[in-house]
């Protein structure tokens, strides 16, 4: 299978990166290190998962970073008085924000890139109203358990596993299949009686769920909220999704590719921190690695088609 071959090559790269990382940091396989690394990678993985859902419909979400901050802000202001309820509220807000993006894309017929660009300003503004400056509260025990391990369990890794399991289930529902159908051939899906608008709104809303989880993870990792911290996640999540083999044109790609892409992306930028090369060259190197990885995949795909 073609998709699997892509993933094999990504997985091989990841193994190389892991091996090098292990050499530099011999504590890698220990639960403490796994906890720290998974806490560090969770926001990126889940943000990229959200981006993946949107990209599978053939869209793109430039407001992802803002929605992530929004979820984080709602969560840390603890509006419901207890952690679980605040979490649910934060997720409800991000799902609604995502669905609103989706509704604009579906009904206004505007290109997703424009809609979500505009929405990014909107949600950033709303975030600043909720949380004007860094602050808010996350219970200290939760922060400690999440970052240092809970009875030896890496909570962030478990959270990632759960989120991806949810996706695996959703992917096999009618909605999941419709999502791929709309992304692969929107007109065809419409002509076959699929309510493409509803599918899009649901997809963007579902992406909002992942994005909200990413924001909550980031809040627990940092023990607080910051209204502007999410911005870099917009472009990083796109880079990761593309690296993971998600097509810009929709309908093609798998979540496990995104997971591999996110791990590779995170490990690579961590590795660069170990190298001691000048910080500006790190950025260049990161860009080069991304371009090369994506170009190789594209070239390989082209050769197979030809």
């Amino acid at each position, binding site marked *: 299978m073609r998709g699997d*071959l892509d993933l094999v*090559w990504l997985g*091989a*790269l990841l193994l*190389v*990166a892991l091996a*090098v990382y292990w*050499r*530099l*940091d011999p*504590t890698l396989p220990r639960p403490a*290190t796994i906890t*720290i690394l998974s806490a*560090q990678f969770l*926001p*990126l993985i889940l943000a990229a998962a959200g981006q993946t859902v949107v990209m599978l419909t053939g869209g793109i979400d430039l407001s992802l970073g803002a929605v992530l901050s929004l979820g984080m802000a709602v969560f840390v202001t603890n509006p419901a008085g207890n952690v679980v309820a605040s979490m649910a509220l934060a997720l409800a807000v991000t799902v609604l924000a995502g669905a609103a993006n989706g509704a604009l894309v579906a009904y206004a017929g505007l290109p997703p890139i424009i809609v979500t660009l505009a929405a990014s300003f909107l949600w950033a503004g709303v975030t*600043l109203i909720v949380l*004007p*400056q*860094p*602050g*808010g509260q996350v219970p200290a025990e939760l*922060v400690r358990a999440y*970052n240092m391990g809970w009875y030896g369990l890496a909570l962030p890794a478990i959270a990632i596993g759960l989120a991806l399991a949810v996706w695996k289930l959703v992917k096999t529902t009618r909605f999941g299949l419709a999502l791929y159908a709309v992304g692969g051939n929107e007109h065809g899906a419409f002509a076959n009686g699929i309510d493409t608008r509803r599918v899009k709104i649901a997809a963007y809303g579902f992406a909002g769920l992942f994005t909200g989880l990413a924001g909550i993870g*980031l809040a627990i*990792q*940092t*023990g*607080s*909220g*910051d209204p*502007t*911290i999410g*911005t*870099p*996640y917009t472009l*990083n999540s796109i880079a990761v999704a593309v690296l993971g083999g998600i097509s810009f044109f929709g309908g093609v790609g798998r979540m496990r590719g995104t997971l591999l892409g996110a791990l590779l992306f*995170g490990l690579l*930028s*961590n*590795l*660069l*921190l*170990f*190298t*001691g*090369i*000048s*910080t*500006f060259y*790190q*950025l260049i190197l990161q860009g080069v*690695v991304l371009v*090369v*990885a994506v170009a*190789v995949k594209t*070239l*390989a795909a082209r*050769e*197979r088609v030809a």
Partner: protein
Amino acid sequence: MKGMTRRALIAAAAGALLATTACNVDSGATTASSPAAGGTASAAPKALKVGWSTIYLAPSWMQQTLKMLEDDVARLKGEGKVASYETFNANGDTSQQIAQIQAMITQKYDVILVDAGSSTALNPVMEQAVAAGIVVANFDSLVTSDKVIRVGTDQVEWGRMTAQWLADKLGGKGEIIAMNGPAGVSVSEERWKGAEEVFKKYPDIKIAANVHSEYNLAPAAQAFASAYSANPDITGVFSQGGALSAAALQTLVKQDRKLVPITGENYNGFLKMWAEKRREGFSSIATAQPNYLSVIALQAAVAKAGGANVPMNITVPLPEITDENLDQFVKPDQPDDSYPIQPLPQGEIDKLIAGK
């Protein structure tokens, strides 16, 4: 299959790339662990591995800070106190900054300096570093954690000091325009808080307009011009940032109006204009977020790592630039976008670190 071979090649190349970078790290690690060149005396504490994680590196203020920091690192290396030094630029990404500090913990740095991208988000990781026995010193943009050494200036005092000068200059009465930074930015809010305290004491000073603008010349000039056209009779301007002051002064000069007193900052573009218009009776006061905050943070951290007792909060007094000492600061040959500052005498630094 051709595609397969190509993929294999690329994977090999990528592996090689990673392997080379790994070698670099190894060599770096050995220099770090070998005894530092200068540290021959057996009684001397071991030379330290120092890293600085900063949210931005590109702005000129950061570049000047980096240069000042590197000069001091070179000196400390000569004294055998510092073994290695590394800069990490998060490029605006706070999550990346967390990863950087995490990586420094893993690599067993002795001292971590931080210019923070968020006042709260770095607390857990910085406290984790402290728990790992690392001395963490935070400067310039400060965090809320009290477990790390914090070296900064008092932004409320900034507003208080410059506003007091303006009130005195106006003899306690007049009409002014206030130029503040963007709403919601904590630095701006704090400086204005200090200024407001002062102006409350002078009921005869009327604030005709309170303008918010980015710390950037073009938008500030636009914002000031519209406020000024509505209030052409003002007798002074309270401005809390260099670019804002430059924008206000530039507007007055362009429109050929009376050059009323404007408070400022050590933004060289403003200082140059000030020096030029001083002859025409323009008067100002300016202060600065001094680049030597980094040096103080470094020295405090090194002292603490050496076992000395160092205060956790070091508030560095704000420099005062006046009509009289302006010439020591202004650098006519340097670009507008630089922040000239006089180095703080070592004696002063020692006193701050000693907590006196």
